[in-house]
């Protein structure tokens, strides 16, 4: 979504146009839901957190700095909601939960889907800070500059963290039998 279109939707949303806000939701829900899913490891929780993030973003839309991307802003809300949930959830429950993607099995017909499932599993094994940069870079397709704004760290730190995250992820993937070719 280009900046002009997004600005128009935000302006209309501020005027109470729910359909305009619905377009913003539609544009970003997939990535945000997947971020939440990788963090919570539970589809229902991920849906709740994503919905709450969009609702809170709407309620506070008047405070949104329009020089920034809407995604970055709602992502921050989502991230805080997700951490709040994950940190407060009983540890055993978090470990017991399995997402559909995590339920990889030999009978999966598509090797590509199997790899995807293993990658998702591997991402979930990363510490949250490393998971975050992987999700932002490869799921949300953010630039380093955008990532820097979202997670409020210098670009250099973002790059370094992403490098470390990928290295850790590579180790996990190798352990899971995913060929790094």
């Amino acid at each position, binding site marked *: 979504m280009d900046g002009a279109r997004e600005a128009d939707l935000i302006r209309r949303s*501020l005027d109470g146009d729910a359909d305009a806000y619905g377009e913003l939701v539609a544009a970003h*829900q997939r990535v945000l*839901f997947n971020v939440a899913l990788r963090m919570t490891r539970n589809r229902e929780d991920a849906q709740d957190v*994503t*919905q709450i993030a969009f609702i809170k973003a709407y309620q506070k839309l008047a405070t949104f700095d329009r020089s920034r991307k809407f995604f970055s802003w709602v992502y921050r809300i989502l991230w805080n909601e997700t951490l709040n949930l994950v940190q*407060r959830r009983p540890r055993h429950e978090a470990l017991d939960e399995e997402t559909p993607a995590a339920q990889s099995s030999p009978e999966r017909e598509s090797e590509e889907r199997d*790899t995807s499932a293993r990658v998702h599993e591997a991402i979930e094994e990363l510490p949250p800070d490393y998971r975050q940069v992987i999700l932002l870079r*490869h799921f949300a397709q953010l630039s380093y500059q955008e990532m820097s704004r979202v997670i409020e760290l210098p670009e250099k730190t973002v790059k370094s963290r992403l490098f470390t995250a990928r290295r850790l992820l590579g180790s996990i993937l190798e352990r899971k039998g*995913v060929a790094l070719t």
Partner: protein
Amino acid sequence: MKPRAEGENESDEAVARILDRVTLEDPPADLRQNVIRAIGTRPEPARQGWFETFRAEFRQRLFPRVIPFAAGAAAGVIVFALASGSGLWRGTGSMPSDGAMAPLVGGTGSVAGGKAGAKVDDQSFELGRANVRFEVLRSNDRAVVAVQADAADPVLVTVQLPPGVFRVERLVTVPSSRGGVEYGPGWVRIRQSGRDRAEIGLVVDSSAGDAPIRIAIEASGGTVRGALRASAAPPTDGLAGPKTN
């Protein structure tokens, strides 16, 4: 050193390539619609502190009512007003909360934001696989008790209000699909599961003095009792802090 660095870069690029091939899962089909339903009742996004919004909305709701918006929604809210103006409860009743939608009133972020008046109490209670957090906010003659559950099993939260000190104006539950609400003279009982949230809006008679709001949380792990304060001063009877049966 150079070969190692090159090896690292190759590995990094290989991981990046794999990540770029990963497919994203589709979000639930009703996610967008649930958000639209939830915001649909507010004419425009909030431009003020949530407590002010809360009060303004209350003033417009002179009679008890339930506002259903969309049955069966995965995340919903029910809003209703109780006993406005009369100083009396309207009698015992119950309200199954099956998926009505309305805007959130406040929320953790705004609660912590400081615009809503002062947070005067904040306590969390663990009970088996349930965690229930209570926050109390106060602004002049209004208070809000926010009850946030994070429970693998259902919990029953009872809030007891000293008569003559507190009068319930409003009750909001988010989402509404999993729990239910009962109320009667001086008490509100909320069934919660998952990550349900409820907010009880109160009118406070400051002249009646400080009195604690007693709470009880019942779950499969037993019962925990405690007390909340609705003013900056601690409760006078020393009940603060959980007691487990």
